[in-house]
């Protein structure tokens, strides 16, 4: 069939020619795809606004030679519009979509878990369920875990010795016991380590009990962890504004 339908989230859009856009989407069924949306920059286009970044859409495409063409779009939820009036949330959402694109390097390779995580992360941001940087850090830790880089915040990341431990080392993969501890390890506060573990496992009660100081320290460690695993830095991460 030349025409197919899928559900997806718009990761980014780029201008093409006079009135068109190239839309990058993370879809439920086909992973990351890029498609051309014709005429969407004209003010008379109804699908233009539906294909803005963060939009959760039901989309119909027509197979093209290099890029597919968007033929129909129905909004499932206009998540971007709910975030653009809150700058800290919007900057956090930008990091999520950039990360989702970077962690799905192959086009058309199904990435069901990354997709589900992105949808729930953006919805949580848009619906203001928690502080934006908490949602972002939880998303980053889980997204890296899905990619195969699950950090350890309990037992020693090297030998598995029972935690809790005091030292944290990014290259070693998380918390390390006194024997395994490489030089240059950090010693974050025990509450920060508890927060990181809670964010990875989705224990929001524990996460919500933390103070700004621990949240800031956790964000720093998460950022370092992300940059360690991604070849190039995330461009949007330094632009995140804390609420």
């Amino acid at each position, binding site marked *: 069939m030349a025409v197919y339908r899928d559900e997806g989230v718009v990761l*980014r859009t780029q*201008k*093409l*020619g*006079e009135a068109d856009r190239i839309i990058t989407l993370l879809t439920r069924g086909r992973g990351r795809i890029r498609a051309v949306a014709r005429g969407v920059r004209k*003010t*008379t286009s*109804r*699908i*233009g*606004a*539906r294909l*803005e*970044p*963060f939009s959760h859409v039901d989309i119909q495409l027509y197979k093209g030679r290099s890029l597919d063409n968007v033929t129909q779009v129905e*909004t499932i939820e*206009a998540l*971007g*519009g709910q*975030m*653009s*009036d*809150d*700058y800290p949330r*919007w*900057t956090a959402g*930008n*990091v999520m*979509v*950039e990360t989702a694109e970077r962690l799905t390097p192959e086009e058309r390779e199904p990435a069901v878990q990354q997709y589900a995580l992105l949808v729930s992360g953006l919805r949580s941001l848009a619906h203001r369920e928690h502080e934006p940087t908490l949602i972002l850090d939880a998303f980053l830790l889980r997204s890296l875990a899905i990619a195969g880089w699950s950090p350890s915040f309990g037992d020693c990341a090297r030998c598995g010795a029972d935690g809790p431990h005091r030292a944290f080392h990014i290259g070693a993969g998380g918390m390390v016991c006194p024997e395994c501890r490489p030089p240059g390890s950090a010693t974050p506060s025990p509450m920060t380590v508890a927060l990181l573990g809670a964010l990875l496992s989705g224990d929001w009660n524990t996460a919500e009990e933390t103070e700004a100081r621990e949240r800031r320290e956790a964000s720093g460690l998460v950022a370092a962890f992300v940059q360690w695993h991604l070849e190039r830095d995330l*461009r*949007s991460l*330094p*632009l*995140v504004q804390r609420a």
Partner: protein
Amino acid sequence: MYDGAVQDLIDELGRLPGVGPKSAQRIAFHILSADPADVEALATALRTVKEKVHFCAICGNIAESDTCRVCADPRRDTAIICVVEEPKDVIAIEKTREFRGRYHVLGGSINPIEGVGPDDLRIRELMQRLSDSTIAEVILATDPNLEGEATATYLARTIAPLGIAVSRLASGLPVGGDLEYADEVTLGRAFQGRRRLD
């Protein structure tokens, strides 16, 4: 791939916004077969625009002297500033004849994924202008897309402590259309921007 000069031209054209490799090739061959006088006129226009046209020292709009036509006009209201993304937005608003104040051109919108943050736009210059007590109102006229909205949000919260009135252009339904055909985002914003009918 073509020989030196032709390929250089294709490469240069291909770096222009909206010009893909195929279009670049088509334009290059058009130039090759065109009348030498026409090509000379194009080359002169390109050189002249870079030599003669600068950015206005006050607002960042394009200008043929230190300040642009709007900023140099003594009849313009200096108490109101309309913030836009690009010089072409100034032209669009001037055509409406609705606005009699001055402009501030940001040079784009905040776009974190492309690495464009507040420091990459002319926001510091805007804040400098606003520290002048004669300015009473700022109208945010960034594009009605997500980056434009977020940039307006950022500016509103940055300007708020100064106590200057800030408004955002209403982004409503396209004139001449039926309500049922409006997309959800536009309809949602039209609701947010509704005004009382007296």
